């Protein structure tokens, strides 16, 4: 019986014959590792409440997925960790001061409504965490109140468990304006560019430290979990547009850097827009998708009612993915116009020769 555990030396069967060891679980694990630096930064800047919120969010996302699949008698796929990624991302796009019930509602909407009702992993038509955030916009006051971070002189630690907002009222916390709020008014933020890159600013839990998000993004690129196309196309579009159109009296280059480092742009470009099930498959479509994200972010930031446009621009582009994939296809090997023309020329030559031969 000893030979049974050995792998067979020759695999006989249908293609594919090259099998990658990657699976959903290992990919999701890579994404979790890539998010770790920004997560630690979130805890550092906004306190231990972030740790508790994230644990709560991951647990409830996995529980919702398990419960739905159990009740609907489907295969239980909680082990692939995709719901854990959604759980972490959900907290990343919320201010640290939101009450726990809001995290729960966002998780429910993300996992049950957006992901499972549409068929589960790979069939969700929008990024679950972003859709969850968009749903939570129903409680606009709570969602748009940003607590002061730990480096702010007015910082007061957030209560760990107690829900901060009072019913129908303003949360009783020390708040702080985000850089995007002053940028909406057409001014450079008070924070220096370095501070914004490091994350010494107010904002959502996971978005403040642009440098650490880039670090995580590089890890994903190195591990080949994502390709450079979507982040580059997205950030590049925003960079070019902000460089060309700074507000009056501001250096275009400084404005561009401030635009890139503020808000959820890095988080969106590296972790949200690149989500497999909600981004296009073909390279050409990926460029169009990424540039569309950048264009919409620019338009919402400059002309929209909201300070930040990353969430909605990614959601809007998510819903165009089927269209992009349908109409922007790569050429089949040998079917490009050039090859076709060459082939036709050769065939015409042969025909001419044959015709000539017959005449003789």
């Amino acid at each position, binding site marked *: 019986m000893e030979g049974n555990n050995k792998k067979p030396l020759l695999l006989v069967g249908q293609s594919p014959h090259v099998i990658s060891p990657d699976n959903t679980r290992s990919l999701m694990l890579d994404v979790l590792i890539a998010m770790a630096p920004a997560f630690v930064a979130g805890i550092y800047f906004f306190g231990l409440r972030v740790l508790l919120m994230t644990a709560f969010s991951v647990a409830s996302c996995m529980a919702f997925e398990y419960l739905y699949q159990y009740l609907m008698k489907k295969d239980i796929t909680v082990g692939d960790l995709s719901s854990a990624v959604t759980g972490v991302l959900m907290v990343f796009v919320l201010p640290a001061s939101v009450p726990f019930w809001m995290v729960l509602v966002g998780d429910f909407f993300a996992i049950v*409504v957006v992901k499972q009702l549409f068929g589960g992993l790979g069939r969700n038509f929008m990024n679950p965490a972003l859709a969850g955030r968009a749903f*939570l*916009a*129903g*409680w606009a006051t709570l969602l748009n109140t940003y607590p002061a971070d730990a480096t702010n002189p007015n910082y007061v630690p957030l209560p760990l468990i107690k829900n901060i*907002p009072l*019913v*129908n009222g303003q949360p009783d916390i020390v708040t702080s304006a985000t850089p995007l709020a002053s940028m909406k008014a057409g001014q450079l933020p008070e924070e220096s560019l370095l501070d914004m890159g490091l994350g010494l600013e107010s904002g959502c839990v996971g978005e403040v430290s642009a440098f650490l998000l880039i670090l995580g993004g590089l890890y994903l690129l190195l591990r080949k979990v994502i390709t450079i196309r979507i982040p580059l196309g997205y950030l590049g579009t925003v960079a070019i547009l902000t460089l060309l159109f700074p507000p009056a009296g501001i250096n275009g280059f400084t404005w561009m850097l401030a635009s890139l480092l503020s808000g959820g742009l890095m988080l969106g470009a590296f972790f949200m827009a690149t989500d497999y099930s909600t981004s296009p498959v073909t390279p050409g479509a990926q460029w169009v998708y990424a540039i569309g994200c950048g264009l919409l972010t620019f338009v919402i930031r400059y002309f929209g009612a909201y300070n930040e446009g990353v969430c909605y621009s990614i959601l809007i582009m998510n819903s165009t993915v089927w269209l992009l994939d349908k109409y922007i296809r790569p050429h089949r090997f040998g079917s490009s116009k050039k090859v076709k023309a060459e082939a036709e020329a050769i065939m015409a030559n042969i025909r001419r020769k044959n015709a000539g031969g017959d005449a003789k």
Partner: protein
Amino acid sequence: MKQSYKKIFMDGLLHQNPVLVQLLGVCSILAVTTSLENALGMSLAVTIVLTLSNMVISLLRKIIPNEVRIVSYIVVIAGFVTVVDLLMQAFLPALANSLGIFIPLIVVNCIILARAEAFASKNGILASAVDGLGMGLGYSFVIAFVGLVREILGNGTILGFEIFGGFYQPCSMFIMPAGAFIVLGCTIALYQAIHLRMEAGKEGKK
């Protein structure tokens, strides 16, 4: 091909429900269901117009030339909508104000035109009246349900009365347009689930 009045009525109310099954008149449901009061006002107006226009079109069905039938239906419907609009402005000015443009827009509500074309132009006056009433009530209970859910979740009230005593924090998402789509979609899904289960039960009995 005579159908019993009961069957015609039940078709309108449930089996061929204009909203849940035929997906007609969805525009007005999405637009006016921000509160139960608006939804009830709208359902009243639509039911009245639908029943009366069905009856008149059924009466005129042998006189209306086939080539201009749609225009003729619209004239009849528009007449009744104007009556309802003026009555509402006279006796329920607040409701007429909050429904606004959606009362005149009943003229182009697809349920009414669809029933005129598909039923009233081929059936007698009584059957048409029953059909209009059934379809109208079918529309009414869906619009009222959607309005109720959206008002409770989006405002924490029923007909303007606070019901949670300040404990619940209303989610304004539900009185925004996106909430209308979510609630209506879930309502249709719920109906389909119940409907399929009942059909399966009938099959099982056979």
